[in-house]
């Protein structure tokens, strides 16, 4: 009997949660810049960051309160990451990297709340983040080294005959960076949420599956929280690695 119910009622629509809904339209002809649920949750994430950091540092005591020590640990964590990966010189770009980190972290974690929307599960968002890192890092490289930045693509130690081929390979791997950078974050978030939805659909399909699937969801949710933090970290550390390449050219 239970088996029949699975056949009949299994109704999985894991991608429905990623639908973009317009609250109102502003159609400019080339694009619709109306307010969407994605934009709403991006604003919520930013508001949450502002409220959190503001309230955390408003007390500014020597022995920090809980909130303040969380904020201080995040700050210190990112700062150490920037310095260890890209050197002291990169510290002037720390505000940007911290902004990227905390925005992704907030979006990922807010996405873990049921019925909310995960902004970073959309490639439009992650590609934008990765491209802005890619473009700014490239501009920083050119500003610092001028035309000498091209030596980054020219493997001077390699045998002369191989150099042009290796140069093409270097350029391809440089151009591939923003893509793999953005796919990693977007696909991780999307896949995790889709899996949660699929497991959740099992519970609705049959009474026999309710207990295992609820247990599964609990475990997966814990894993997803870990992934949410880890992916924010991975995105940020890769930003630091790219920045290091631009500043120090190998």
């Amino acid at each position, binding site marked *: 009997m239970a088996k029949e119910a699975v056949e009949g009622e299994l109704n999985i629509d894991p991608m429905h949660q990623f639908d973009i809904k317009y609250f109102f339209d502003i159609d400019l002809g080339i694009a619709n810049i109306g307010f969407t649920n994605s934009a709403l949750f991006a604003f919520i994430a930013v508001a949450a960051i502002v409220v959190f950091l503001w309230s955390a540092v408003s007390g500014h005591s020597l022995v920090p309160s809980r909130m303040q020590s969380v904020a201080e640990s995040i700050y210190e964590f990112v700062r150490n990451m920037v310095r260890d990966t890209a050197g002291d010189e990169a510290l002037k770009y720390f505000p940007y990297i911290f902004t990227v980190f905390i925005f992704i972290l907030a979006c990922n974690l807010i996405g873990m709340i049921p019925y909310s929307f995960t902004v970073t599960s959309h490639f439009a968002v992650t590609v934008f983040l990765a491209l802005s890192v890619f473009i700014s890092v490239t501009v920083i490289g050119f500003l610092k080294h001028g035309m000498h930045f091209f030596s980054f693509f020219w493997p001077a130690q390699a045998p002369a005959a191989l150099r042009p081929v290796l140069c*093409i390979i270097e350029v391809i791997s440089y151009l591939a960076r923003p893509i793999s950078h953005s796919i990693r974050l977007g696909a991780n978030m999307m896949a995790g949420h889709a899996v949660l939805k699929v497991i959740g659909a099992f519970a609705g399909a049959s009474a026999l599956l309710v207990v295992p699937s609820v247990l599964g969801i609990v475990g997966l949710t814990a894993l997803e929280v870990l992934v949410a933090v880890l992916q924010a970290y*991975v995105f940020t550390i890769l930003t630091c690695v790219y920045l290091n390449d631009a500043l120090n050219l190998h």
Partner: protein
Amino acid sequence: MAAPDGKAGETDRKSLDELGARIDAARQQLDGPKREQTTKYKTLNRAWQMVVELVVSVVVGGCIGYALDWAFGTLPLFLVIFGGFGFAAGIKTILATARGFIDEDDTASP
């Protein structure tokens, strides 16, 4: 919670040192099992990262090749060549990533 600056500075210093010692002790207690758990997912994440890097490199190479073919009207030629270059670039990126992981593990483990 904190005493105001000035004459209470001495007590602050003392309580800070105490707090530091307590944090260190707690950290040592927590570090063992926690580290083991995170490495499991870190490994998964690394495998996934390398796969993405390889595939993306091949696709980017293929796109450049296809664009050149489109410009010169030599369809399969550059697509194949640059697909190969893309594969090589992917292998190069993966090797660099793996080297990074090895360094990371060396510094992480005491």
